[in-house]
Structure formats: C-alpha cells, structure tokens
C-alpha cells in the first residue's frame, strides 16, 4: 500500500470536496497561466512594435505640418540621395497640397456638414480639398489623419502611371461633385481622369484627391516632395540614418522626425496591458496559493484523528507529511492541467480585453489622430497558447504543493496522538 495509493484513495473518498478544491484552484491557476501567456505575448508585441515602427523616419520641409506651414518642398535631387545612405531600406516620397480651383466643390464645410471641428457655424467657410500624392510603388499609402485608402470602385495606380493624368478620389468628394469612374476633371488646366473611388471611413479623409507623385508635381508646379518616409534596416541604426539625413537636409531646410513619439504612445498601450497582466498574474498566484493552503489546512484539521492513529501505529511525521504532500500535489496537478486547458479558449479573449481596456484609458489606439492608422496596425496582441503552458502549469502545481505543504507539515509534527485519541 504505497503512499501514492493511500493519497489517491483519500482524495476519492470525498469526491465533492476534492472536486470543489480542484475547480477553484483550476480557475486561479488558469487565470495565472492566461496572464503568463498574455504577458509573454505583449512582450513579443512590444519587440515587434519596436522593429516595425521604430525604423521609420519622416522628413518634411522645415515648419511644415500637413499642408500648413513650411516653405515649398524637399528638392527631388536631395531626396534621391537618401537611398544611398547606409542602412536605408526604402525611401518613399509623398506630396500634400491644396486644390484651390473651381472645378471641384469641397464636401466638408458650409455649416451643418460637420465642418472643421464639427462646427455648425452658419458661415460660408468651405474647407479646401487636400491633394495627396504617393509614389506608385507605395504599397499601403496612408492619408493625413491616419486613414487608409479602401477602394469601393475602380482601381489604384499602375506602376507605370507615375506621371499619368489619373487620380483616385474620396467618396464624399465624388458624391458632392457627381464624379464616377471615367469622369474627367480640370485640375489646373489638365483633364485628369477619375480611375478609382475610395472610402477611408472619415469625412475628412474622403474629401481628398489622390494622385501619383509625378502627376502632382506637374499639375501643381512642384519640384520635389512635401514629405519623405525613410525606412532604416534596424531600430538601432535609426540615429545614424537621421544624422546622415541631417547632412543632406540641414535643420533650416527640413524637420526630421523619427517614430519614437508614436512608438512611446503605442508602447504605453501595450505596456499597460503587460503590467495589468503581470499584476493579475501575481494576484492569481496569490489566490491559488491561498486556496491550496486553506484547503490543505482544512484537510489536515479535519483528519487530525487519522494523523493521531497513524502516529500511534508508528508512522513518522515525515511519512504522514509525505502522504498529505502527495495528496496536495495530486490536487494541484489536476487543477493545473484543468487550468492549462482553460487557457486555450480564453487567453486571446483576455488579451483583447486588456489591450482594449488600456487603449480606452490612454486613448492612443484607433484610427483617429496623427499616426492612428499605424497605431491600429500594430497595437493588437496575438496571444498564441503553446503546449509549453502545460510545463508552466506543472511548475506552478509543484511550487504550490511545496508551499502548501509547509504549514501542514508543521501542524502534523505538533499532533500528540494521546491527546488526539482522547479528545477527538
């Protein structure tokens, strides 16, 4: 009759009590494992964000933000030099300018239309139509305000259309001006064909004209671009690339910004989720430890007569402690396996909950605001549960069993068989 068999018999003797302890403990351990998994996922995600965003460098004419401020453009010949800087992976120029002609009427403004700042002023102010131009090779052009171009009709530019008289227009602008695919609009004296209509999900974003860089330069008489996005090969080379850019574009000519600010904001969202998961993990561990400790103390207290009998027939404290230890370990392992199984369906949900909770409190995740599109692209957390979670569970179970066996071991050593058998 081995200690293990005796321990298992004792657990089976009270199936409801054992089941209840395993259930409560499984929830605690499961929560702890979920938090371990989410914590690991957020850590990976922080690394990914660092790699993904931290390598972007933006160059704009000095003092310029969007279509406002600053003077002119960045000269194309200087922009071309950027590709030769060591550690630069890609250089993508874009143009932001205003269309002020009469051929098109802005869809934003004139009171009641949700004009700038949502004002319902009765003034006749009409917001200008923004023109954004991208290199045709740009895979995912992002509009000012962070919105993305989602085509609802027509097509985007072909690779050989960098100087073609074509454009893609926002849905609001198209509706306002009755534009359809194939419509031609006079832009500064040139008939430009509408080849696509997009919906960015924002009224402001849908009130834009998008055209190839070469086309915009020709139509608006611009030399060079108004913004350049430079991608470094590694986040640790960003500063070196910035220094090289500064040799081409001195401070008086251009503002050079890295994605550090944006990174910090996204980082804080995921980091908040990470710290929440860490806190919850600690709480779950403490709860699990308390549950198992209380259970074991109750178990030992209820079976004090049995301990007295065992001592009376010659069992040592170590042998009795071992039996209770094995019982505790069996309960912990059963709970840990159940808890580990719980992580598979629940870890992703908890991860999403923590991220959305953090983003709500910090207000940085979403499509609004500067850089919002980029933020939304990277701020989600993919919580993949690996089979390693069972190893963690086993580790937790053993640790809990060891911790929970200390107090009962002390209690067992203090049981005096004569007193127990006399009074119990």
């Amino acid at each position, binding site marked *: *009759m081995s200690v293990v068999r005796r321990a298992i018999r004792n657990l089976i003797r009270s199936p409801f009590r054992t089941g209840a302890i395993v259930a409560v403990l499984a929830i605690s351990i499961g929560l702890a494992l979920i938090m371990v998994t989410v914590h690991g996922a957020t850590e990976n995600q922080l690394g990914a964000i660092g790699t993904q965003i931290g390598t972007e460098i933006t160059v704009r004419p000095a003092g310029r933000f969007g279509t406002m401020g600053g003077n002119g453009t960045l000269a194309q010949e200087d922009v071309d030099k950027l590709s030769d800087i060591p550690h630069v992976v890609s250089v993508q120029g874009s143009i932001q300018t205003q269309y002020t002609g009469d051929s098109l009427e802005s869809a934003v403004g004139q009171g009641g239309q949700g004009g700038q700042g949502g004002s319902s002023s009765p003034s006749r102010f009409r917001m200008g139509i923004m023109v954004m131009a991208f290199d045709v090779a740009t895979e995912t052009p992002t509009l000012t305000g962070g919105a993305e171009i989602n085509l609802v009709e027509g097509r985007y530019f072909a690779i050989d259309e960098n100087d073609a008289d074509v454009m893609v227009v926002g849905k609001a602008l198209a509706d306002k001006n009755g534009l359809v695919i194939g419509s031609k609009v006079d832009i500064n004296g040139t008939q430009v064909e509408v080849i696509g209509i997009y919906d960015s999900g924002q009224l402001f974003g849908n009130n834009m004209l998008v055209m190839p860089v070469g086309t915009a330069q020709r139509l608006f008489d611009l030399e060079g671009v108004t913004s350049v996005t430079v991608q470094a090969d590694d986040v640790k080379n960003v500063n070196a690339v910035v220094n090289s850019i500064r040799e081409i574009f001195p401070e008086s000519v251009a503002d050079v910004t890295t994605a550090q600010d944006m990174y910090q904001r996204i980082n804080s969202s995921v980091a908040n989720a990470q710290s929440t998961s860490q806190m919850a993990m600690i709480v779950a561990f403490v709860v699990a430890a308390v549950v198992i400790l209380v259970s074991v103390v109750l178990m030992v207290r209820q079976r004090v*007569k*049995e301990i007295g009998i065992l001592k009376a*027939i*010659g*069992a040592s404290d170590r042998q009795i402690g071992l039996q209770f230890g094995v019982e505790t370990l069996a309960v912990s392992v059963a709970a840990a396996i159940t808890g580990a199984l719980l992580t598979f369906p629940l870890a992703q949900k908890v991860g999403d909950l923590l991220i959305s909770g953090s983003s709500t409190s910090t207000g940085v995740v979403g499509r609004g605001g500067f850089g919002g599109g980029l933020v939304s692209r990277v701020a989600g957390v993919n919580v993949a549960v690996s089979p390693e979670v069972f190893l963690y569970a086993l580790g937790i179970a053993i640790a809990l069993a060891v911790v929970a066996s200390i107090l009962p071991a002390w209690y067992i050593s203090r049981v005096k068989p004569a007193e127990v058998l006399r009074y119990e």
Partner: protein
Amino acid sequence: MSDNKDVVIVEGLVKRFMASGSTTVAAVDGVSFRLPRGKMIAVKGPSGCGKTTLLNLIGALDKPTAGTIVVDGIKVSEISGRDEIEYRLKKVGFVFQYYYLIPNLTALENVMLPMDLSGLKRNEQETRARQLLERVGLDARHHARRPAKLSGGEQQRVAIARALANAPAIILADEPTGNLDSKTGRRIVELLHSLIREGRTVVVATHDADIAARADTILEMNDGKIVGQSLAS
C-alpha cells in the same frame, strides 16, 4: 534494568495534566509495578482512574511527568524522535476501544499499513496480512471490505491483526470490548488470550470484571494509583 522475566518495569510513574487555571491533576500518581513476559495482565478500575493514561505512557503515546518505564529492555520514558517511532512501530501494538481503523483502506490494507511504514516489501506485507486476518478469524471474503462494511467485532479483529503486524513484544488493549456486545466481547478476549501462547504479553485496560477474570494478573487502579495487584484465580 530489565529483568529477563519482566517485560514491563514501571517505577514511580507520574503523569500530571493541566486542569483549570494553574492547577494540575495527576492522572497517574506514583505508580510502580512489574509485568511478567508472556502473560495477560488486566488493568482494572472505574472510568477516569488512569488506565488509558497508563497504557498511553507504556505505549510511548505520551510522556511521563516523572518516573521510568522500561519495556523489553527499552527505557521508554527517555526515548524520543526516531527511537520513539521505532518503538511504537515494532515493540508495541495498540488495540483501541473504537478500533481506529483508517476508513478508506480495506481490512487487508489496514493490516498492511504498519508493515508498509516499517518498509516491508508489498508482497510480503500482503502475505503476512492475510495470515494475520485468518489468525484473528476474519473470513477471507471480508479482507477487501472497508471498515464501514464490517461489524464491530470484525473491526476489532482487524485492529488486533494490525496490532500484530510487526510482531510486537507487547499488545496494549484499551477497553477492547467496551464497544461490543458481551458475546462478541468474549470472543475478542479469547483471541487476545490466545496471543499469550505465542509468547506475547497482553495488557488490557478494562472495567469489566469478566475480562479481568481471564487475566493472569490484575492491577487495580483508583485515582491514578495502584490500589491492588492480584493473581487471577
């Protein structure tokens, strides 16, 4: 020192318990006696006279306040730790009024338990446990039953078999028939008496005159003192 003839030697034994406040009560008060080997000795007296405490002291379940106890050459009153555990495991076998079997183990497993604690191999444990259960008269069909499925007399037989598991020199039986009807009680006394023929010493605490009548020696206790020692007729 132990006399080869005497298996238990008790000298000036005192056991005091804390009562209310700072007062103490002497459950065993200056007891001295010698018990011969291979005999059945009855410790007789009314409830609360100190019989159980005396057996607990001899069995090393409790520590005396003063005095010495020597059992089979071992100074029980001075042992502790591993020696004390070894003594309980191998030198004495306890039989209790309420049997005190482990409820979730079968009759066979209850008898195997002391052998398991002493490190005997499992197959040897089982063989010896079956022999002991047969020895005490428990039908083989009942070996796999748990205590709750056995009658009081059967449970006490299992308890006696358990007490014999590690072949102790002395069996301490505390009111072994106190919870049994008279017919079953007599059979248990017969069983205990039969152990003497195997060379064991059996000490029975009882207030039952019939049991005392079967003993070779009777120690009479009252208020923690030995008030009489006589040979049974």
